[in-house]
C-alpha cells in the first residue's frame, strides 16, 4: 500500500466534551484533553472543532503471514493472518524495530503512509486465503473503529498490542476480538515509563480485563537491556504472569539493537534460555522462544504427560495433534483457542 501523504481524519469513538471546546479522548489511560486542532500523545487522534477524530482507519500495510509470527502459539496453529496496520503508537519505545511506521508524528523518519481501510475488501481477501484478520506492527488499540468494522465482516480478529487501553474501551472491543498478544516490557513503573513514556499498571489491568471478557491472551516480553533483560526483572514478570494464570503463554523475544538503542548487544541464546527457566520456576506452563533455542523453544508439551502436542518450525506449524482442545495421550485440556470461535 502506498496511498496518501497526509492522514485522512474521520469521526472517532471514545471522545467526550471537556469544556470550552476541548475534547477528552478516553480510549487509552493517557486520557488526553485536547484543544481545537491538538493531537493526542498518540499523534493519530485529535480534536477537530470540538469533535474527536481519528487517522487510524488506515491500511498502510496489509500482509498475509503465519499466526505464529504475531506471535500466537495457542490460537489456531498454522492459521494465516491478514495483518492490517496504519501509522501510530501510544508508546515511544527506544528499541522499536517498527519505528518507521509506529512513530508517525514523532520522527521525521516515519512519514504518513497508507490509505483509508476498506474492511469488506480486507475481509474478502482474508477469507479467500482462509485467513483470520489481524492488527499489528503499530498499535491496534488506537484503531477501535476499524477493529469493530473488521469484526463485523464475520472473521475472527486478533491484535498484537502494547495493552495500553482503558478498561471501558476493552469492554466495547473485547467482543470483537478472538485473541490479543500483549507486550509486558518492564517489571516496574520507572523502567516502563523510561522505555515507553507510559505507565505499566494499565497494561497489567488490560491483561486481566481482556481475559475476564473472554479474549484469549498471550504475553510477550522482549529482553531489553536495562529495562527487563535482567534476571530480577524477568523473574518478577514471570511471577506476575503466573499469579494471574500459569496457563498464559509467555513469549520471550530477542532484543535487536536498532532505532535509539543501537549500542546495546543482541540478546544471547543463553540469556533467553535462562529467562525460560525463570518462567518455569515461576510455574508458567508454556514458555516460548521463537528461534534462538531451536525447535525445543517453540514446541508445546502437554503439562499432563509431557507428550509433544504442537511442533513448530520458524513461523510455522509443523504438527498439531491436539484434538478438541485436549492432549490425545492423556486427555489434558490444553488452554487456547484451537478451533472455531
Amino acid at each position: 500500500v502506498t496511498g496518501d501523504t497526509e492522514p485522512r481524519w474521520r469521526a472517532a469513538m471514545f471522545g467526550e466534551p471537556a469544556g470550552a471546546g476541548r475534547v477528552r479522548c478516553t480510549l487509552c489511560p493517557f486520557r488526553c484533553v485536547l484543544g481545537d486542532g491538538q493531537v493526542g500523545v498518540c499523534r493519530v487522534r485529535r480534536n477537530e472543532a470540538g469533535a474527536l477524530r481519528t487517522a487510524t482507519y488506515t491500511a498502510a500495510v496489509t500482509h498475509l503471514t503465519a499466526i505464529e509470527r504475531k506471535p500466537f502459539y495457542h490460537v489456531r496453529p498454522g492459521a494465516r493472518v491478514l495483518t492490517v496496520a496504519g501509522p501510530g503508537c501510544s508508546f515511544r519505545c527506544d528499541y522499536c524495530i517498527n519505528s518507521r511506521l509506529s512513530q508517525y508524528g514523532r520522527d521525521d523518519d516515519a512519514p504518513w503512509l497508507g490509505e483509508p481501510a476498506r474492511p469488506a475488501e480486507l475481509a474478502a481477501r482474508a477469507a479467500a486465503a482462509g485467513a483470520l484478520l489481524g492488527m499489528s506492527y503499530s498499535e491496534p488499540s488506537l484503531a477501535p473503529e476499524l477493529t469493530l468494522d473488521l469484526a463485523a465482516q464475520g472473521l475472527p480478529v486478533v491484535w498484537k498490542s502494547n495493552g495500553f487501553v482503558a478498561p471501558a474501551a476493552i469492554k466495547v472491543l473485547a467482543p470483537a476480538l478472538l485473541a490479543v498478544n500483549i507486550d509486558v516490557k518492564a517489571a516496574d513503573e520507572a523502567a516502563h515509563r523510561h522505555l515507553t513514556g507510559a505507565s505499566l499498571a494499565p497494561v497489567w489491568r488490560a491483561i486481566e480485563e481482556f481475559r475476564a471478557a473472554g479474549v484469549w491472551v498471550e504475553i510477550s516480553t522482549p529482553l531489553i537491556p536495562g529495562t527487563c533483560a535482567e534476571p530480577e526483572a524477568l523473574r518478577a514478570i514471570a511471577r506476575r504472569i503466573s499469579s494471574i494464570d500459569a496457563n498464559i503463554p509467555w513469549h520471550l523475544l530477542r532484543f535487536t539493537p536498532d532505532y535509539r538503542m543501537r549500542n546495546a548487544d543482541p540478546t544471547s541464546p543463553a540469556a533467553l534460555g535462562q529467562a525460560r527457566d525463570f518462567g518455569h520456576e515461576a510455574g508458567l506452563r508454556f514458555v516460548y522462544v521463537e528461534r534462538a533455542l531451536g525447535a525445543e523453544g517453540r514446541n508445546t508439551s502437554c503439562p499432563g504427560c509431557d507428550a509433544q502436542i504442537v511442533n513448530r518450525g520458524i513461523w510455522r506449524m509443523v504438527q498439531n495433534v491436539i484434538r478438541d482442545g485436549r492432549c490425545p495421550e492423556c486427555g489434558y485440556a490444553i488452554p487456547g483457542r484451537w478451533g472455531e470461535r
Partner: protein
Amino acid sequence: MTAIQHVFTESLPDLIDASEYSRYPEGALVRLRISVTDAGVEILGDGLRPELIERVLAAIGDGPMEQMLCG
C-alpha cells in the same frame, strides 16, 4: 544524495541461522546475497544489527530498501 525509500514487505529469506547467534555476541555479522534478476541487481541483506545492513545497502545504491516488520 537521494533519500532511501523504505518499503515494508511480508517476508524476506533468512541468511543467518539462529545457531550462529552465540558466535557473534556483539551482533557484528552482516551477510549479503547479490543476484541478477530481470529487474536488475537485487541485494538481500541479513544481520544482527539492522543499522549495519542499512548502511551497507545505502552505500551500494539508492534503490528502494525492503524491510520486514516485527509482530
